[in-house]
């Protein structure tokens, strides 16, 4: 008897999680559908001058993607390299402190990363090419932010490699590098790829840090030293001062972010399908 109640309770919890997602999507669509229908392609073709009723988001979509892609290009190889290094090359005593460092990094609030970026990184870049607050600054800070989790995911994937394989490799006198290149990485590539794509989603969704270092000028990404504005920074920057259509436009950009995230996830799932899912 109690079993059935428990069963229902558990089912309810699961439904709640699904409902939250459904709720978010429904709410966003509900709020923005008439606006989107009315604006149509203007949302992409025009520029962003909300004061004049122009809500073209194309440049900001490009900005979000540019900053996230560069961050991933910087962070992913680094994460894989460091995870492999920690596991196979580093002296044993280093593992604990290194992992502690990454746990610390993962726990630092994004505002703090943003502040560091604004006060240290941006002036440094400014010394090379003004203004300093730029696409590059955003990607560098983001790369630092997604590195720890990307590394931990890779580490978890590496842990799944059957020890027998490693023994066999050693018996065959493979160098550790050789083993990595030809045995370990090919096997773990799907899991790593899927985890890394998830981090891309996180990079796409980051708000506070990019707000402080990207320059926030609405323009198509050109040189990495030029400022860009991401969709997330835009929402944070303008939401408190937005009314009517401007506010709805911001909600619409939130919806767009969710849709892109979902698409990315579908991709990540496909990549990871060969590997029996770990988190």
């Amino acid at each position: 008897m109690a079993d059935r109640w428990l069963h229902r309770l558990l089912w309810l919890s699961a439904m709640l999680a699904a409902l939250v997602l459904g709720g978010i999507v429904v709410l966003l669509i509900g709020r923005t559908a008439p606006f989107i229908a009315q604006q149509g392609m203007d949302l992409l073709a025009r520029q962003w001058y909300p004061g004049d009723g122009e809500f073209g988001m194309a440049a900001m979509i490009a900005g979000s993607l540019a900053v996230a892609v560069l961050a991933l290009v910087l962070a992913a190889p680094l994460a894989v390299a460091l995870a492999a290094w920690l596991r196979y090359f580093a002296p044993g005593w280093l593992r604990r402190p290194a992992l502690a460092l990454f746990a610390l990094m993962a726990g630092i609030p994004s505002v703090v990363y943003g502040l560091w970026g604004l006060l240290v990184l941006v002036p440094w870049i400014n010394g090379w090419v003004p203004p300093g607050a730029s696409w590059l600054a955003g990607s560098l800070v983001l790369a630092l932010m997604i590195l720890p989790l990307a590394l931990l995911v890779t580490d978890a994937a590496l842990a799944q490699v059957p020890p027998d394989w490693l023994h066999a490799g050693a018996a065959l006198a493979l160098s550790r590098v050789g083993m990595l290149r030809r045995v370990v990485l090919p096997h773990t590539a799907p899991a790593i790829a899927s985890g890394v794509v998830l981090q891309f989603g996180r990079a796409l969704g980051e708000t506070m840090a990019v707000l402080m270092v990207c320059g926030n000028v609405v323009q198509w990404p050109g040189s990495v030293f030029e400022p860009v504005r991401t969709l997330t920074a835009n929402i944070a920057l303008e939401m408190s001062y937005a009314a009517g259509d401007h506010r709805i436009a911001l909600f619409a950009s939130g919806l767009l972010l969710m849709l892109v995230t979902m698409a990315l996830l579908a991709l990540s799932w496909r990549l990871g399908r060969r590997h029996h899912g770990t988190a």
Partner: protein
Amino acid sequence: MSQTEAAVRDDGIIASVSGPVVVARDGIAMIVNADNPVDAITRAEVRALYRGETDNWQALGWTDRPVTVINKSSGRATLTRFLEYFGLDNRNVEADMVIGENQQGIQAVASAPAAIGYVSVGAAEYEADAGTAIRLLKLDGVAASTSAVGAGRYPLGRDLNLITTGERSAMVQRFLDFARSDAVADLYRKHYFVPARG
């Protein structure tokens, strides 16, 4: 608290307001980095800078260095007032960086030697006094300071208001009177604003 024209419905649209009650005065100061020797600017020069017509500090008396123009993001009262005073259209402004809050602007200018931006006089004066690496520029000959704002000499002033929606209850009215009274004048001064009573 900054100048707006209406009160907020739940979709953000302003419906009806009981007229703004001015509680304090502030100004908008043009600021540059402390390394920058320029200490005064004219209305024409600001227009030229923000429209991209002038883009090198040489034209204003410093070295050969490109200007980093800092603007504010849309919807903010500081932006509206700035554009209004200098007769600019936001579409024609060529900015190298867009910031949100005053402090972000101050930090941005303090860390970029070739930058110019505009922020609240009160905030800038506070920070400059505390040692932050910025300088407030004289605008058309008048120093950008809280005392100039208070004396009415600084041309680019702005009012800080409280607004209410609907009918004002007795309690609300008492609060509004309190907010304009001598009892709180020192609070405004502490934040480098000028109390409305002068």
